[in-house]
């Protein structure tokens, strides 16, 4: 493939140049946050750090961390770096106990985010000759809006399909000749299967796919590539930091380049918080150095991965991260949606069930299955099957409202949920990723 870049002068800049940008932007950002985000300023003061102590990336480790708990505590406006009047967008994702994470964007923030997504699209070969088919959800979820904006900037003809309605997806894909598909890997696998079933593979013009928002294996990549006759690329991001495009894969397909002119990445020991050297496996931490409205510094992603600066054949110089290998908390990503066991607990208690449950996640035909085993309680029991079914339906609806995705509920007898060493096993993840 021909080497193409959306912003070549940035994407192939020397390490020294990237470092110089980072030093300058970090110093400026710390000052901005100190002056505009009292919540973080207090954390800095508690650590005895002032903006004067931060002279560049080498001093980054002196700054306090931010976690999802901070986002919950500061909800909704506590971490904003700009007045609401300067903001133009809100995106959102699940929080730990039902309170959602909301992120704010100025027009400048949206521009930079869309640039990052455009880099990802151009990296997989996207040009103004392409039809970019975006099947991520549009709405509060960052997937649709992010890739949509990136596709515009890359000059592609953009198909804002959003998720679901497979029949319509396939019709547009065949009639309008989609060439680049953006969605979750499990939905890509599902579309591949639907195409096979209908025997319409010869009408599909796809050449590349950008698949993110959930974990997927190399085996799944090969399956999708073979079934759709495309190259499948990974993309990474999180709402707190901006959305998809924090990092993305190039044609080498050996890790995702982090957009280091906007985000400084560190790997830390999740237990001690100590910064680990390049090549170590640990928790990924991001500092946003160009964002205005939601300028998080040292945000702990809870994703476990490895960074490498080995030169890449694509010519990009930005550091590469491996696929996340796990989490340092109990968050699950199911069908691209963040799910915390504590959210399920909240719903169960509200609905009069015991907080004794087990989540069973599996991947069947490349698609996530999600079951919640719930112990029956005397309060929810009835001699009438119809009444039990009604309670069950109410629980399913409440879970959907809280989590944003549907779970299958399985009612079981009390004290049947497996316990190990007296402690209940809350999550059984059978997916092999």
């Amino acid at each position, binding site marked *: 493939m021909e080497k193409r870049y959306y912003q070549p002068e940035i994407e192939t800049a020397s390490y020294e140049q990237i470092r110089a940008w980072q030093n300058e932007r970090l110093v400026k950002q710390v000052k901005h946050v100190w002056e505009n985000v009292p919540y973080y300023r207090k954390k800095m003061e508690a650590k005895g750090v002032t903006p004067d102590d931060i002279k560049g990336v080498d001093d980054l480790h002196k700054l306090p961390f931010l976690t999802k708990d901070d986002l919950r505590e500061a909800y909704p406006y506590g971490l904003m770096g700009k007045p609401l009047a300067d903001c133009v967008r809100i995106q959102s994702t699940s929080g730990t106990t039902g309170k959602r994470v909301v992120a704010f964007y100025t027009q400048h923030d949206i521009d930079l985010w869309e640039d990052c997504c455009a880099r990802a699209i151009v990296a997989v070969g996207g040009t103004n000759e392409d039809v970019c088919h975006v099947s991520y959800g549009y709405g509060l979820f960052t997937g649709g809006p992010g890739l949509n904006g990136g596709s515009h900037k890359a000059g592609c003809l953009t198909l804002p399909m959003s998720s679901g309605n497979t029949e319509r997806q396939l019709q547009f894909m065949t009639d309008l000749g989609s060439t680049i598909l953006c969605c979750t890997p499990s939905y890509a696998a599902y579309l591949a299967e639907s195409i096979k079933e209908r025997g319409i593979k010869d009408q599909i013009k796809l050449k590349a796919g950008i698949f993110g928002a959930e974990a997927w294996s190399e085996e799944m990549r090969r399956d999708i590539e073979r079934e759709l006759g495309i190259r499948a690329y990974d993309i990474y991001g999180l709402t707190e930091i901006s959305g998809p495009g924090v990092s993305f894969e190039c044609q080498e397909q050996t890790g995702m380049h982090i957009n280091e002119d906007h985000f400084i990445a560190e790997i830390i020991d999740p237990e001690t918080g100590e910064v680990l050297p390049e090549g170590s496996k640990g928790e990924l931490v991001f500092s946003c150095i160009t964002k205005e409205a939601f300028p998080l510094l040292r945000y702990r992603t809870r994703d476990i991965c490895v960074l490498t600066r080995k030169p890449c054949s694509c010519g990009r110089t930005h550091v590469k991260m491996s696929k996340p290998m796990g989490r340092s908390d109990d968050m699950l990503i199911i069908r691209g949606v963040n799910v915390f066991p504590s959210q399920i607990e909240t719903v169960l208690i509200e609905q009069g069930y015991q907080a004794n449950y087990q989540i069973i996640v599996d991947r069947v035909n490349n698609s996530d299955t999600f079951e919640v085993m719930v112990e*029956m309680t005397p309060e929810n029991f009835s*001699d*009438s099957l119809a009444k039990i079914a009604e309670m069950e339906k109410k629980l399913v609806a409440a879970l959907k409202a809280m989590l944003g995705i549907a779970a299958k509920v399985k009612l079981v007898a009390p004290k049947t949920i497996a316990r190990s060493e007296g402690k209940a096993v809350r999550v059984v993840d059978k997916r092999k990723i």
Partner: protein
Amino acid sequence: MIYQISVFLENRAGQLAEVTGLLAENNVNLRAISIAETTDYGVLRVIVDDAERASSILLGQGNVMSMTPVSVVEVPDRPAGLADVLEILSEKEIDIEYMYSILGNGGEKAYMVFRASDEAKFEAAIKGAGLALATKADLGLK
């Protein structure tokens, strides 16, 4: 008042045997049994000779259960015996949630357990039609 015991059952092998075994061990006599089920779980409904004792045994073993008052109707033991009763209930627009048969106390009568959505209306209709409601003694219950 005749009480039915309902027990939550998971749909897996051996669940029913566990409950009936527990009652057998404690010398509780089953007089009627009915099961309603979905693919994942079921509700076992039983009438036993000693409902109080059976319920404390079941609860003691951690079962989820409930006790519900039910009406037991003496149904003429002849062709169309039940059909006639149901016809009366249908005319009065009384909704039956479920029903099942129960053993009498050695006599030649037939008995049916009814659970109506409106028990008072149900009882009035049965009595109005000249039908009898069974007593505990009729059914050999304590």
